[in-house]
């Protein structure tokens, strides 16, 4: 499936505005309802902000990609980086609301990183139905028990599990803003 839009830019704060603006164009072209477009913009903004703030070491601005595909009534937006991956970050400078906000706004969320050498946050949005639920899927073979980044991650979808009810920091799942220190 050919994505409808692929944006490749530097993970800088000012480029988040470019992404938001581009999503506005996507919403216009696909006649996405304004309230739904607002949700999409906010969720994607949070995902991009996570990349800008957490993916790369301080002072480094690596690449970031935003890929959007529309399939009938569903829009999938993928935010990708080549940074240090997803993991708990107790010293996060943010409020730690990023992933929870994304989960609240998207119909499903998938996280992937590790052997595939890039980190992905994939969000799907129903363009017609109200939000039913938000599932965050962490695609890993094994979830670490400490605050280390998972090293073994399979191809997308080979194995996956929904997160557990233990606190993110304890389970090794993304905590706070979802990116490792």
């Amino acid at each position: 499936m050919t994505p409808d839009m692929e944006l490749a830019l530097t993970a800088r704060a000012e480029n988040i505005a470019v992404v938001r603006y581009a999503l506005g164009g996507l919403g216009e072209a696909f006649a996405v309802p304004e309230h739904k477009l607002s949700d999409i913009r906010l969720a994607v903004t949070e995902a991009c902000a996570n990349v800008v703030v957490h993916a790369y070491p301080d002072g480094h601005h690596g690449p970031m990609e935003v890929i959007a595909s529309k399939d009938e009534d569903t829009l999938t937006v993928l935010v990708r980086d080549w940074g240090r991956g997803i993991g708990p970050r107790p010293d996060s400078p943010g409020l730690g609301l990023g992933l929870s906000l994304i989960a609240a706004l998207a119909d499903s969320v998938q996280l992937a990183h590790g052997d595939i050498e890039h980190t992905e946050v994939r969000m799907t949005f129903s363009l017609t139905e109200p939000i039913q639920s938000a599932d965050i899927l962490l695609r890993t073979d094994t979830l670490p028990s400490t605050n280390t980044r998972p090293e073994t991650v399979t191809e997308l979808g080979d194995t996956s599990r929904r997160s557990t009810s233990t606190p993110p920091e304890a389970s090794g799942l993304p905590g706070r803003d979802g990116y490792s220190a």
Partner: protein
Amino acid sequence: MSELVGHADRADSLDADSLDRSTVTDPIVDEPEPADGNSVRVRLADGPLAGPILWRVVSMMLTRADWPLDRLDDMLLVCDALSTHAFAHSSDTTVTFSIQAGAQEAELRVLDLTNDGASGLTRDTMLPIVGNMLERIAERVSVETGADGEGSQLILVLRARSPRMS
């Protein structure tokens, strides 16, 4: 409201087959080099997206570089022309645009065109009386071979304050 990371009660119901892979795509490049802070590459599928998105991305970058309104308006014409005609000269169903914007000058590249695509795209923007629109607006219009030695790319360079305006 939906739930945050957590909730093991539904974990058992999930397996690999439940993952939708239909929209998983390869990166634009495998391991992209860190780009210049004010450059963006956007690949668009043929359809209604091209015009609205290309214009928004370009205008955001030029505005950030503090370009004057008249040149933003010029760029709108360029974006409209490119998004209208570029797909007819693309080597597949997408067209990639690369934008690099500075305070004085901006470069807009249309990539992945067919061998004669860049020239054809330039020809398509010819207007009666006006002439070639791209050449009227841009300070430089050039055609190069694609980066991988195949196909062609169209390169437009615009200055923030065109000497033609004075």
